[in-house]
């Protein structure tokens, strides 16, 4: 077999695996979010479709969305309207290229992995602005403007929060950062960085309390107000894909990725495969983000920007300085 | 319903003071006392604004819960009915004014109590009483192109019944 065919074969296999993972995620997380939110709100959630826990609910949703009419409103900016769902979906999948699911379970271990993540996730906002502008709706335009402001305000602390683990591990490769956490997870020495990353990550995800660009009680549905059916479900897929992506990156950077907890004895570590550890941590973070979403009210746009620029940015800078100061101490202690 | 002798009106202290003050300051106003212990003033529409202003400024009637119109079609008049309340003393007062039906205009009270702006929009909508000097006299419930004033007693709905888009069985 020629080498290019092998490469191509692997590429296709990996791509389909990632795509499968993303789709499965969406199916699972839709169900999980509904059940989880229902429990928080003292409801029972879906339970009829797929008794007894309603596990087929997301399948039913998918079939509903697939069978809906493809409506394009009359006066939209057609090209942008059609492109926006694709533009939002592609980067949501591309992030997974560098996510280390296990010691060898990674599509491509880029040596600038973390920069790649920061670059790719920013695309989401471009798609939101496209969708908001194209729909020719005032609510969606306001939503797009909010999203743009939010992106600028939160991208900076997000990247600065990442610098802490990068300094400690001495590499930009995500796999390298995970391997560096064998002795100790970085959340122990980087609690501030973790919190900043999670907060800014939630803002990037447009999850409550930062879901300003799709604030349903103010802007009806925000940027996807004129979308329906499959086009809308692309936004939905991208949202859940990004949710898992942010949790996975946070796991990788701060929770030791696929590493078992460092304090467990070696015998126990061997029992559970790394990918299970990774997924368990990721879904734990996903659940935490959902928990926050269903508890807090929404902030206002000026308060959001204040929080981003005047609080998170200084804190993340302080975190970098602190990391630099403590680095020799940590090395002497043998923690890293 | 003006009562003089039959029953003792259950006036509260504030109302009693206002009644005395009005009798003292404005002997020409001819206040009456209703069955429910309210002072009632009946004024001509040309005096309405002056009386209202005096009531607000001199007698502390700062709160106007209700302003409405009754259509006495047989007598050929509208009766404007303004309920006033003094939030500090609890005094109650009713301001009445007759408006001829064939010239249904009235000076606005929106400059006296801001809330009358919307009360009068409602009256204009429902009775077609035009309030002179009102800053924003638009219909409030019905569309501007609606014809007629539905709460007038002689209102006839000229519309034909709406066709029903249902198949006959």
């Amino acid at each position, binding site marked *: 077999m020629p080498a290019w065919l092998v490469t191509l074969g692997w590429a296709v296999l990996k791509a389909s695996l990632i795509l499968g993972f993303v789709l499965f995620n969406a199916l699972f997380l839709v169900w999980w979010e509904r059940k989880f939110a229902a429990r928080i709100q003292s409801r029972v959630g879906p339970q009829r479709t797929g008794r007894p826990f309603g596990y087929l609910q997301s399948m039913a949703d998918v079939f509903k969305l697939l069978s809906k009419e493809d409506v394009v409103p009359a006066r939209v900016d057609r090209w942008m309207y059609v492109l926006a769902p694709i533009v939002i979906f592609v980067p949501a999948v591309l992030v997974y290229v560098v996510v280390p699911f296990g010691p060898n379970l990674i599509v491509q271990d880029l040596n600038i992995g973390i920069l790649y993540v920061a670059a790719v996730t920013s695309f989401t906002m471009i798609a939101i602005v496209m969708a908001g502008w194209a729909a020719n709706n005032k609510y969606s335009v306001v939503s797009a403007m909010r999203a743009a402001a939010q992106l600028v305000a939160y991208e900076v602390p997000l990247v600065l929060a990442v610098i802490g683990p990068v300094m400690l591990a001495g590499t930009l490769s995500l796999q390298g950062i995970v391997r560096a956490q064998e002795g100790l997870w970085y959340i122990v020495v980087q609690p501030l960085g973790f919190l900043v990353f999670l907060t800014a990550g939630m803002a990037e995800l447009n999850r409550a309390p930062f879901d300003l660009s799709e604030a349903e009680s103010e802007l009806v549905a925000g940027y996807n107000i004129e979308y329906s059916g499959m086009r809308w479900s692309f936004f939905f897929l991208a949202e859940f894909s990004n949710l898992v992506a942010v949790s996975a990156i946070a796991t990788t950077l701060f929770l030791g990725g696929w590493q078992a907890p460092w304090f467990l004895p070696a015998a126990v570590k061997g029992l559970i495969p790394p990918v299970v550890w990774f997924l368990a941590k990721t879904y734990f973070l996903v659940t935490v983000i959902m928990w926050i979403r269903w508890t807090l009210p929404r902030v206002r746009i000026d308060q959001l920007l204040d929080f981003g620029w005047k609080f998170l940015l200084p804190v993340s800078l302080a975190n970098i300085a602190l990391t630099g100061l403590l680095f020799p101490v940590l090395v002497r202690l043998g923690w890293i | 319903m003006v009562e003089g002798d039959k029953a003792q009106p259950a006036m509260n202290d504030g109302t009693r003071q206002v009644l005395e003050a009005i009798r003292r300051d404005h002997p020409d106003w001819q206040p009456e006392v209703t069955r429910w212990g309210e002072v009632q003033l009946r004024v001509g529409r040309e005096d309405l604004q002056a009386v209202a202003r005096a009531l607000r400024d001199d007698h502390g009637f700062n709160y106007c819960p209700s302003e409405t119109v009754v259509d006495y079609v047989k007598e050929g008049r509208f009766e404007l009915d303004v309920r006033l309340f003094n939030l500090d003393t609890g005094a109650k007062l009713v301001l009445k004014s007759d408006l001829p039906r064939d010239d249904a205009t009235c000076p606005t009270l929106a400059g006296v109590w801001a809330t009358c702006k919307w009360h009068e929009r409602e009256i204009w909508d429902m009775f077609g009483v035009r309030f002179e000097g009102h800053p924003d006299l*638009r219909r409030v419930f019905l569309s501007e192109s609606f014809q007629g004033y539905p709460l007038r007693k002689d209102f006839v709905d000229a519309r034909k019944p709406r066709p029903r888009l249902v198949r006959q069985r």
Partner: protein
Amino acid sequence: MGGARTRPEPQTGARENVIELPVLAEGSVEEISGRTRQRARFRGDFEYPGDDFEGPNVNRWQYLPQTPPVEDLLVEEVREIEGNEREMVMNMGPQHPSTHGVLRCVLGLRGEAITRCRPDIGYLHRCHEKLNELWSYQGTIALSDRLDYLAAMTNELAFVLAVEKLLEIEPTERADYIRVICSELQRIASHLLFFGTTALDLGAVTPFLHSFREREAVYDVFEYISGARLLYNYMRFGGVRTDFPPGTDKKIREVLDLLENRLPEYHDLLSYNPIFAVRTQGVGVLSRDDAIAWGAAGPVLRGSGVAYDLRKADPYSGYEKFDFKVCVEESGDVWARFMVRMKEIEESIKIIRQALDGLPEGDARGQVPRFIKPPPGEVYARVEGPRGELGCYVVSDGSDKPYRCHWRTPSFHHVSLLEFVPVGHLVADVVAIIGSMDPVFGEVDK
């Protein structure tokens, strides 16, 4: 912003979009309107099938749920102000998730800041006062339920009190107590709903469902008492329709205990949440003078520092017998109006407990004939509904129907406040302000 682009001109008279509806069977449209075919255009202006009626005084627009023009504000998409500054006009409602029904606010926006706000109402107008003139007094009790459908008990009470004054009858003492209990339970239910919708307007979904859980418990009590959960038709002239069924006392006390346990939970979840505080404090400030002049009532007035509560100021149904506080907040913002309502729940619980303790024996139903013809006269009765002073002005001409019935509804005036309160705030605050006014469109649009 949105309108700055050039838009494609709307296609006028585009025939390709015309969908031919099938000819209907005889005896239907054809006969009535003299038309042979019905057309409806989609993706354009919807043409109502009856628009070419011929007849005197017929305006085709009468048939349409047409939006009344609000001066020039609607026609223009973007308005030039002061040189380069431009203003976007945005319609919030009548179909909007958080305008509490069918309120339409026409907002002038500069960026996201409000420069003008025009509330536009009437989308739920049901000719309520006209119906009052056509229905008998008994029927009007049931009709008044539909006014403020979240506080049906207090609506009925206002009307019943008015007619009782005309008839010169006094309800029995037990009936008075039952009325007080029902009014206060209604106030609790309404304020619980307010709590939930405020949370929802501010983006927190969970408190909404929690408050509805307790509201259901209150409605269970109402169902037990009157047989209905929302629209009770329970008050009668001279009393109430039926006495409390056995076991009501226990049921009500259970609900009160439940509420007292859950209220601190609400405060933990929402009221003292820092995000909630920054979203509400200092937002939508209504000054004391404005509140009085614009006829604000109830919690909106008390939130602006006016201690005016009809239950104290002009007691009815024996409210003077009960010991409770008038809840006042001084700051006049969304937070103040919210806290007034939350404290009122606690005061209502106190009143109900006192009323249950002192509930006298006797007949709860007045000895009033079914068919009444009040003597000619007029009366203005008012009660403190959950939203404020609910007044009912009834004129009788001696017949079995009211000659005129006017409802002074507090929400109507709270909506009028939206003309100036949101100006200078952001779009997100408009939602919070509307929520804090707690309008119910059944009574705004009448």
